[in-house]
């Protein structure tokens, strides 16, 4: 099915795409038909910078278990870091 589901998140960071590194401003997250991963559905994350055009995109397609493990891994990494380092790693925040 086409879920139409789309979470859109404003982000700050950088990603490496077809033409090298670029600044990221947006991410979309959705569980829908993948382009490349051989399954009917996958959790897709697009890291985007729409101002630089549609090709300014880093995409990943994951099965549901992998996506959950990744999400928990991200949270575990952040929770293991001293708060002062998190503040330092968020310029302009």
């Amino acid at each position, binding site marked *: *099915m086409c879920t*139409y*589901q789309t979470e859109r998140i404003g982000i700050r960071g950088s990603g490496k795409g077809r033409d090298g590194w670029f600044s990221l401003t947006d991410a979309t997250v959705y569980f829908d*038909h993948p382009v490349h991963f051989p399954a*009917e559905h996958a959790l897709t994350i697009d890291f985007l910078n729409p101002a630089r055009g549609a090709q300014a995109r880093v995409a990943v397609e994951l099965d549901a278990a992998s996506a959950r493990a990744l999400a928990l891994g991200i949270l575990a990494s952040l929770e293991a870091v001293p708060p002062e380092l998190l503040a330092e790693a968020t310029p302009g925040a």
Partner: protein
Amino acid sequence: MTDAMRAETVEIRGSGGDPVEAYLAQPLDGGRHGGVVVIHHMPGYDEATKEITRTFAVHGYLAICPNLYSREAPGASPDDAAAAARALGGVPDGRLVGDVAGAMAALTALPSSNGKVATIGYCSGGRQSFLAACSLDLDAAVDCYGAFVVGAPPEGMPWKVGPIVQMAPDLSCPLLGLFGAEDQHPSPAQTAELEAALTAAGKSFEFHTYEGAGHAFFAVDRPSYRPEVAREGWNQIWTFFGTHLAG
């Protein structure tokens, strides 16, 4: 008699007179032919959809597929274009109707046109095929598993689409609906609701819901492909267009 055909990228005038990229395929046998506007699925104007467009030409139809994401992502690869369009909330309904009208005009302007035009759409394009058929003067329309003709996308999402079942009284042509019994978008209950609305409006339609198939059973490059169901679906399409697009 020749079986030669020609397929190429062209530019048409879409909604608001905007230039829109499109893929045109036409038989070269010197005869006159009905036209088919192919409305691509949410993953975009991709190789599989261009193959579908060529298949219509092989079967004797003038076929054109407008790139509905031309504006968001000119020149981008289909997957990047689909991601960009998704982030922006998809294709607005009014713009879709204008782009299909432009594609229809491009087909009927061809010297080999017999003046008749149908739409066919897949996935999000199935809903858009119904939308076009309720908004424009068409000779036939096919809805392949279009979600959210009945029902609305999840709340809080950026999508610009809503239910359009209420447009059933405006349907301008016979409608063929091809659905999977295991699909949830649209679910069999939702296609039954559309069927009831069309019946109440006195419209001509024919729905087939296939067991053993879910969404996207025509998509040859995806795990959802169901060869037997797709073959039967294609047969329904040839019969339907043979009846309604004949010169």
